[in-house]
């Protein structure tokens, strides 16, 4: 999962995202960004609020969710559990997609995920992003 933002000069920034939670209203999502990358992301979000969240299943099916920033806070223990579940799911998905183990394991397990910042945004558009001529089709 990755998140993209941009600054006032339209220069983009990005980070990988370790774990996310969809709120019961089905419109709001909170995602977790490790502190090593959160400074620039937060600064962009606070200045213009625009964010894109790329979610891909390793069958190479991918979705791009776009929306507006609402708020942020440090992660708590519940968040941490979500992150750990995400990490182990990501690793098993990579191994299933035939990534060599000596790459997948250190890649996923070596990502620093704590301390992290929980960032919340409202989803406004969803796009299908799977590679191929269908890419970019808006689905809601």
């Amino acid at each position: 999962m990755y998140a993209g933002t941009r600054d006032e000069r339209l220069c983009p920034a990005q980070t990988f995202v370790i774990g996310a939670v969809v709120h019961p209203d089905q419109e709001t999502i909170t995602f977790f960004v490790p502190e090593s990358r959160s400074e620039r992301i937060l600064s962009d979000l606070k200045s213009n609020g625009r964010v894109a969240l790329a979610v891909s299943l390793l069958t190479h099916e991918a979705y791009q969710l776009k929306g507006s920033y609402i708020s942020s806070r440090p992660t708590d223990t519940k968040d941490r559990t979500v992150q750990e579940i995400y990490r182990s799911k990501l690793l098993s998905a990579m191994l299933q997609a035939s990534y060599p183990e000596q790459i997948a394991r250190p890649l996923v397990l070596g990502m620093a995920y704590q301390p992290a910042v929980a960032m919340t945004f409202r989803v406004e558009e969803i796009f299908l992003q799977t590679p191929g001529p269908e890419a970019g089709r808006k689905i809601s």
Partner: protein
Amino acid sequence: MGILPDEIKPAMQGVIPSHVATCSLDGTPNVTTVSQVYYVDPDHVALSYQFFNKTIKNIRENPRALAWVINPETFESWDLALEYEHSETSGPVFDVMDMQIEAIASMTGMKGIFKLRASDIYRVISATKNVGERLPLSEIDIASGTT
């Protein structure tokens, strides 16, 4: 000049996918996975253009992009601030990328269907080696997959 150091080259072999963030003229960011960011020279990289997508559309409106690449042996990662310069449909950079794509396409039954439309050439504005993104490898219990 000469921004990209030699040590970044293994990160540009497509062993671990990279991702690229762009932004449309109306200020909406977009981030996608790319299989490989190609090294052209110490000041340029290239992305392959096979199917038209949001990334391609964005950089033609707003040429600034950010690519994240990672070395598959050391797991060091880099943020590359890029500016789109032009596209090539022939020449040495195009040929190298085209040959690779043709070879892999032929191995997966996609010969003639999955083709390189163009090589998009970007100027590298800065290359930042990331710190603090990784847990020290000794902390990872590789065998059991827990930390």
